[in-house]
């Protein structure tokens, strides 16, 4: 059964230096507050996993929390580049960042394999691309019945997966709706799972499109209203598109980035940016 604990305690208990950590979310429900708490707690040498690393990963990378990134698309959606990500890859600042690069289909199926207790997944993908030469984690596999050759990728099994959801009940059962991306698979693939939620309620009444993560499949649940800002939580907030645009300027320059992080994240324990 999941324990309902404050965010600081949850991150302290679940995320350690050198861990493989997936903070998933597909534009919607991105766990920004949890990422900020990881930064405040000064975690290092993390292997960050995510299909679509965006601003929160730019922040984790720029603050030197990550040694390695496993991903399929890294950008500021609808805006442009992730400058901290590029600076780390192109100039090793503040620390070098190893990359393991996949396609969305490959990453999604790697989470599915992890959630299914399988060591690998099979897909029609990667063939003919240069991605294949850049990692040992893309291999051909033959169908035992037809002989057709397809592609195998290993399961993703994060030490910790963190996602944000709309709500949980007092037993720690979590309910999310709207675009839920690959979050269920990412949670079930992980050894430990943390879900931050907009609110704790007495009763999770049924809702169209709702996905429920039972308490017994989770480690901790932490109430963090607005915990996905500048991303959004359908039914609770809308996406702060202006912030994503503003981030492009804030993050272009190392000093302005550090200054912004100091003011809005490091000194913001307890109160989250709005």
């Amino acid at each position, binding site marked *: 059964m999941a324990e309902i604990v404050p965010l600081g305690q949850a991150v302290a208990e679940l995320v350690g230096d050198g861990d493989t950590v997936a903070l998933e979310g597909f534009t919607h429900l991105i766990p920004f507050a949890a990422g900020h708490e990881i930064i405040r707690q000064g975690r290092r040498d993390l292997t960050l996993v995510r299909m679509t690393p965006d601003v929160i990963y730019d922040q984790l990378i720029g603050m030197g929390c990550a040694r390695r990134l496993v991903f399929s698309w890294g950008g500021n959606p609808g805006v442009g580049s992730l400058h901290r990500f590029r600076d780390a890859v*192109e100039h090793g600042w503040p620390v070098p960042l190893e990359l393991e690069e996949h396609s969305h289909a490959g990453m999604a199926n790697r989470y599915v394999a992890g959630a299914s207790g399988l060591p690998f997944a099979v897909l029609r993908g990667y063939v003919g691309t240069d991605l294949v030469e*850049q990692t040992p984690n893309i291999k051909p596999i033959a169908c035992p019945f037809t002989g057709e050759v397809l592609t195998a990728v290993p399961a993703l099994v994060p030490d910790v997966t963190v996602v944000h959801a709309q709500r949980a009940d007092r037993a720690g059962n979590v309910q999310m709706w709207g*675009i839920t991306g690959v979050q269920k698979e990412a949670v079930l693939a992980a050894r430990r799972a943390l879900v931050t939620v907009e609110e704790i309620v007495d009763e999770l009444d049924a809702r169209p499109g709702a996905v429920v993560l039972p308490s017994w499949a989770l480690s901790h649940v932490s109430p963090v209203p607005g915990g996905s800002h500048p991303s959004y939580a359908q039914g609770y907030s809308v996406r702060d598109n202006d912030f994503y645009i503003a981030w492009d300027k804030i993050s272009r320059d190392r000093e302005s980035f550090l200054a912004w992080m100091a003011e809005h994240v490091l000194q913001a324990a307890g109160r989250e940016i709005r």
Partner: protein
Amino acid sequence: MTGPAPGTTRPAGGEVPGWTADEMMTVAASRALRNGAVCFVGIGLPSTAANLARRTHAPELVLVYESGTLGAKPDYLPLSIGDGILADTADSVITVPEVFNYWLQSGRVDVGFLSAAQLDRYANINTTVVGDDYAHPRVRLPGAGGAPEIAASCREVIVVVRQNPRTFVDRVDFRTSVGFGGGPGDRGRLGLRGAGPRMVITDLGVLEPDPHTCELRLTRVHPGATVAQAVAATGWPLTVTDDVTETDPPSPAELTVLRELEANKGQTGGRS
């Protein structure tokens, strides 16, 4: 996302009163979508073109966004692939693994839109790195996203990209997504099930693969652009068909709808 994010519009080579080069490019892309087709769209110009088509000649167009929205009918242009309006208006919201496995990989999608940071004569696409050394790239791009499997599995692919020698290169620095590979027969040899790129729509005109050589040839120029401009904007000796035609200019109806869409982009974004 299936490529670098779009920049802002700029006028075509020859300044044409009445519309911008990006408007012409978007209108041309929208016209390439037949009514009833199932279309896999990323954010930016493809999403704009698809929504323009849905409001003009292709009301039955089915929009599939990789965030997991099947049959989305957004009443304004989403600013992100995961905009709430997509879930609110979709016939069905599914998981990301399901989008890629049950819908894309299975061959159910008619048209996929792709963009490119680099593109070669066989419409192979690079959205990963600029520079010869992957480990030390001159420019680190966003990466593959859904593009490799869109390029592999959609029945056909339409590439929309601005034309200039930096983008239209003799050899892509990194092959992120396969067009026609090294030429005729390669897609079959690689086991790719879709037919591959049907056309490349740029701000200057339209390129289409030669049915025999698979090499992209200039088949159309947009009003105000010239064959010479297109050739100059291409990093390989561009073949030009004998019967290059001129694209019909955007109709007043197309322009009105397009500008209304742009004006209301991401409507509710950040206005909470």
